[in-house]
């Protein structure tokens, strides 16, 4: 082996070593949670080792059963319903809106763009009461309507993100499409939307995760326990006055991580794939 190759291999090894070490540190809290899901509640706070002394699988069964009347089957179903529909609406609507802000020179554009920004800066706590009153007057309380329908307006975060990505794409592409006879809408569907795939994928991942984790929304708008989502159910386990079933909480918490992680893993490769740039620079 040549010197150069050895150096290269050593460099690789060092790289992987450092990354793995750091990965262990980053993952430690989560490994702790996962290992707790297999421990007895007593062991969780008394031992520091990550390996359970006795593997208990009934934590999962107990946690899943919850309070017998409603189980995590219902909670997972509700969470998926809420999350998937919201994500579809949020991502698609955001892309449409982003295109409008980024590419179409219409009067008042900066003003509305500024309004959109302002909505991001207002803490939810102060608008939640008036918003609740509006939904109450509409009769939407105790359903998923107040949670899902507003998502179809797009989210400022995604809109802003996609605007940034669209502005990376040269106008020449738009122009050549227009010369080919496209109107603005088909420029969007044929050229721009496919090109901002990384932004769309990223938004999908984020939206899924945010909706999955959303606690305050379901708390306020869902009354019947059989509508509850996983995020809500996880917080119902503990009450300061009684003993908490920590192993069950960690078991369900671990399970709750799985869908979000899976979504990430599925979509991850599209981001890594990157941009296919055919004929960008003439």
């Amino acid at each position, binding site marked *: 082996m040549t010197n150069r190759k050895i150096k290269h291999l050593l460099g690789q090894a060092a790289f992987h070593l450092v990354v793995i070490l750091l*990965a262990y540190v*980053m993952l*430690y*809290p*989560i490994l*702790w*949670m996962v290992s707790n899901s297999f421990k007895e509640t007593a062991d969780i706070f008394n031992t*520091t080792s990550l390996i359970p002394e006795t593997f208990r699988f009934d934590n999962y069964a107990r946690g899943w059963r919850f309070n017998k009347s409603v189980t995590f089957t219902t909670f997972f179903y509700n969470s998926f319903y809420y999350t998937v529909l919201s994500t579809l609406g949020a991502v698609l609507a955001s892309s*449409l809106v982003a*295109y*409008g*802000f980024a590419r*179409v*020179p*219409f009067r008042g554009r900066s003003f509305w763009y500024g309004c*959109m920004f302002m*909505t*991001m*800066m207002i*803490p939810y*706590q*102060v*608008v939640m*009461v008036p918003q609740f009153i*509006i939904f109450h007057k509409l009769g939407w309380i105790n359903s998923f309507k107040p949670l899902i329908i*507003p998502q179809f*307006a*797009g989210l400022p*975060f995604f*809109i*802003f993100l996609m605007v940034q*990505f*669209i*502005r*990376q*794409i040269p106008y020449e592409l738009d122009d050549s499409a227009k010369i080919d006879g496209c109107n603005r*809408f088909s420029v969007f569907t044929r050229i721009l939307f496919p090109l901002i795939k990384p*932004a769309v994928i*990223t938004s999908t*991942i984020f939206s899924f*995760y945010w909706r999955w984790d959303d*606690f305050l929304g379901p708390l306020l708008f869902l009354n019947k326990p059989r509508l509850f989502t996983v995020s809500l159910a*996880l917080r119902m386990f*503990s009450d300061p006055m009684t003993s908490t079933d*920590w192993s069950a*909480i960690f078991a369900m*918490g671990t399970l*709750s*991580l799985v869908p*979000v*992680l899976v979504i*990430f893993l599925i979509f*991850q*490769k599209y*981001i*890594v*794939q*990157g941009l296919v*740039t055919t004929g960008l*620079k003439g």
Partner: protein
Amino acid sequence: MKQLSARKRAWMDDFSGYAFISPWLIGFFAFSIIPILFSLYYSFTKYDILGDPVFNGLENFRTMATDELFWQSLKVTFFYAFVSVPLRLIFAFFVAMLFNRGTRAIRVYQAIYYVPSLVGGSIAVAVMWRRLFMADGALNAALAKIGIVTDVSWIGDPNTAIWTLIILAIWQFGSSMLIFLAGLRQIPKELYEAASIDGAGALRKFSHITVPQITPVIFFNLVMQLINGFTVFTQAFVVSGGSGDPLNSTLVYALYLYQRAFKYYDMGYSSAMAWVLVLIIGLMTGIVFKTSSSWVFYEAKEGK
């Protein structure tokens, strides 16, 4: 192509512009504008949620000026934002650069480094964080193993508690990393190939291609992280149990705002606080936006 008059074209542009942003616009008018206007109104009232709002002019703002906890929460939030945002972004950028390849091993690493972001503000995080940073927690145990013996209660000591919050923010850098990755991946490979042909080394490629190309993403991340930094709530709630403890060293602005609204039944004051926050954040993002034209490089030229 048909020759349209400039006026007609402008009108068509307006129409299609509004058509495209109509989902957002409708949602804005239906669900956002009224609550926002209401919250603005509340900031000039005394409103305890259970009764009706009572107009009291600038009273809330006057109280704010002398409210010790208000200034404390502002101080905590500024410190938190200005420390965690740069650290988080630098970390995210650095790791994204490191992982900017397509190999399978890299994908695994990416996923691992992203997982902390997925845990968010769940109740598990609260317990985890205490487990790590209490006097008899994992951090002190690890330090002891390498010879540093300490029994500082990181999470309970007013001098150090805010750092546990900052570490939490940095630990969850995965989302910023993801966006940087997406941005890096969107840089056309041809640019790098052309530069190689011209004989450019790695450093030159980085400073002349990568950095300029990624400025829109840096801009995005900077603005979003600033906004998030100033509106942080869940993490502080989770780490301090909603109290801002110890001794208000983790009392971020949004937490204090929440306490005043829902624990002290003082929604009027909270709304006033909210609008002060909007002004502050607006000012800062405004500055970032204004300066952006000098350092952010867009591929597409504006004005068509």
